């Protein structure tokens, strides 16, 4: 066993509605959306027009700054509609799958026999490049960079997260090929973070050509950003790439089979999900294909992603490119008489000792979207937030630097090391109800603008 890193800070949020490990629905959508908003730092340029026919893997969008970065269609069929919003902003490219599914053939290749340039070209050409995310900032990697290292987190500690063993256990060969390919792109090797809880039993343990790190701790211990900060912190000027296990499987499949395959098992979960389980589906598939899980409840919020950092897409929305979780929860619009004064409130969870959730550590809660308070200035001291952030960072100082737009301070307090989801638990416990992830996102946007 390689080095084990124990993270004492963090919080596992006890939400009910965990997905049972079985596939209860295989989705063949009647329309698929490619949404540029899924990709951070991507400025879309359209490569198709309405009525064009596309194959699975043929490019639909390209990046304006790095035209070699392509986004591909996950199905073969015809472009049904190009959806634009205000100021003609491109929202989605809708593709209707055809009768017969054709996959573009990129050719079977072995990463061992290719050099870094050829591997990059192969990933770029296939439209799988967006799976590679760079730190700092959490945006799409620049193909011209050579990263210091590549990091993969093989476990997810987010509430109700999909189990990587269940979703990807049968794709270890692809993942191994993906690792071999990524290892050629960096001098620092591919680092993989495993969970101390199932370190020995997980199939990720058997992967080769990797540097293994074992982490023990509560959420966000499974966030790749937290793991990087304990192994090889991101500094000014250095670049680290991260890939999800799902991305590795897709990249590996590209080399092993020569095709673009982003099909995945998605955990459909949450307090309001009906018989939460997994669905086999495609990114961009409409949420209406999961109607059986959502039910008819008027006040259901449908989230693509996890309950902390996912995007509200609604029943009309689509599954995000990176997401393997769909969370369904109740809109908490009811007012509660003197709620804050009620000494017990046993149905609600709180990490704060002024409630009694600590008496029932095993209990799961039917959480809803109520804010449970009003927005206020930061009152509690830094430690209150740092208790759930296992990084060498003063969260309140970083947030205040972001609010002030002070680039120097943001740098000093560690903006390079975080992306919004790393501070999601801080946002959860914040008694002042600040939108902490939004503050970090705005800070990152400002950094990007200044760095141009």
């Amino acid at each position: 066993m390689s080095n084990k890193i124990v993270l004492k800070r963090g919080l596992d949020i006890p939400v009910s509605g965990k997905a049972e490990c079985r596939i209860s629905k295989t989705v063949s959508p009647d329309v698929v959306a490619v949404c540029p908003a899924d990709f951070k730092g991507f400025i879309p340029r359209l490569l198709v027009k309405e009525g064009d026919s596309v194959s699975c893997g043929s490019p639909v969008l390209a990046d304006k700054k790095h035209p070699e970065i392509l986004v591909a269609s996950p199905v073969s069929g015809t472009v049904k509609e190009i959806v634009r919003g205000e100021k003609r902003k491109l929202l989605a490219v809708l593709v209707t799958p055809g009768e017969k599914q054709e996959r573009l053939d990129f050719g079977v290749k072995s990463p061992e026999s290719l050099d870094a340039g050829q591997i990059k070209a192969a990933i770029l050409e296939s439209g799988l490049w967006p799976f590679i995310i760079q730190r700092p900032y959490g945006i799409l990697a620049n193909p011209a960079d050579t990263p210091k290292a590549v990091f993969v987190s093989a476990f997810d500690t987010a509430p109700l997260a999909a189990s990587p063993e269940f979703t990807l256990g049968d794709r270890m060969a692809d993942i191994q090929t993906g690792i071999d390919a990524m290892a050629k792109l960096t001098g620092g090797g591919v680092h993989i973070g495993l969970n101390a809880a199932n370190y020995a039993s997980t199939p990720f343990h058997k992967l080769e050509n990797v540097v293994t790190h074992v982490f023990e701790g509560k959420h966000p211990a499974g966030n790749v950003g937290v793991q990087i900060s304990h192994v090889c912190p991101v500094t000014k000027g250095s670049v680290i790439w991260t890939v999800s296990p799902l991305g590795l499987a897709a990249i590996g499949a590209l080399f092993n089979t020569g095709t673009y395959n982003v099909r995945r098992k998605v955990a459909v979960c949450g307090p309001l999900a009906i018989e939460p389980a997994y669905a086999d589906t495609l990114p961009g598939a409409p949420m209406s294909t999961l109607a059986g899980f959502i039910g008819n409840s008027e006040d259901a919020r449908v989230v693509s992603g996890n309950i902390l950092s996912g995007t509200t897409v609604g029943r009309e929305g689509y599954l995000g490119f990176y997401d393997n979780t769909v969370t369904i929860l109740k809109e908490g619009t009811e007012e509660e008489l003197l709620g804050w004064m009620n000494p017990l409130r046993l149905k609600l969870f709180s990490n704060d000792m002024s409630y009694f959730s600590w008496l029932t550590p095993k209990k799961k809660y039917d959480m809803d979207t109520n804010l449970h308070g009003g927005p206020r200035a930061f009152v509690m001291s830094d430690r209150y937030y740092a208790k759930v952030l296992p990084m060498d960072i003063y969260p309140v100082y970083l947030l205040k630097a972001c609010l002030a737009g002070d680039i120097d301070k943001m740098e000093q307090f560690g903006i390079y090391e975080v992306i919004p989801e790393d501070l999601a638990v801080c946002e959860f416990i914040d008694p002042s109800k600040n939108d902490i992830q939004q503050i970090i996102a705005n800070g990152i946007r400002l950094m990007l603008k200044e760095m141009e």
Partner: protein
Amino acid sequence: MKKFWTATKDAFATFLHVPGTVTRSGAHVRDSIDLKRIMIIVVIALVPAALFGMWNVGYQHQLAVGGGTAAHIWPNFWFGFLKVLPLFVVSYAVGLFIEFFSSGLRGEEVNEGYLVTGFLIPLIVPVTTPLWMLALAVAFAVIFGKEVFGGTGMNIWNPALLTRAFLFFSYPSAMSGSEVWIAKKAGETFADGFTGATPLALDGAAQYSNTVWSQFLGTIPGSVGETSIIAILLGACILLWTGIASWKVMCGSIIGALLVGGIGDLAGISTMPCWNQLLVGGFAFGTVFMATDPVTSAQTESGKWIYGLLIGILCITVRLFNPGYAEGMMLAILMGNTAAPLIDHCVVTSHIARRARKFNVTA
């Protein structure tokens, strides 16, 4: 004026109901803790001190006019209750009006921070404080101590202590001496040879028993809420259990006080042993309830130690070496508040330097 009513209406509505607001961005679920809850916990922690203080006002009055005994619990309490209640009413009425008004001006929701401040103020002033003075002091503290900085969370000094400081420097005769601590009814005079001086200012004999036990129990004259160590310890337990107050600040303050007190003992300049300093005056109340205010105390963990130590050291230094002021806690905490940003700056700068070194090693 319309803004004022909106803010007021909103404040009362959210006081009655947790609003049905839902999350718009970021985490879709949120913890059920909010600032109202945190503030009400602090108020609950203050209740023992307030109740005891009311009783003690009655008890001291009985002692002063002669013939009273501690056994008359209810009459003593009722007397004190009637004396202290107007202080609460004035403190809340003036403070909340300003708070609602300025929240309306800023277009923000009313922050519940004043729930605590308004409760603290009557407990740290002499019971005989004239109400108009108190009103003036509250207005000063809330406007210039808090609202000009942008409201709760932005202030540098503890507003309750600013109220006391305003009274102390503007109307010293109403805030010190040997008579202000004892409430009288109209026409009453003190018994012959009576002194109502607090143990800190005591110079000679007193009517009340000035033993360590009575100091611990709190049956001595003083500001309304500060006398009973037992009641304050009860509050401290609540604050420490819920984690609202920092044990580091409290410990730092006690260690700092013992340190300077100990030096005073060794040098032979103190009138009481250093541990006794912890029991008298506003030290315990200040350490537990005022120094630990999360907004005005140091933010960083090592900063909290330094901040606490500083307050303890300053408090006893003033008590020992300054002949003008018998009590040093108020000024010690205000100085501590002033120094807190500087302490944090030093801690954070060293953190940044340490991070930079770490990066140079790993890079």
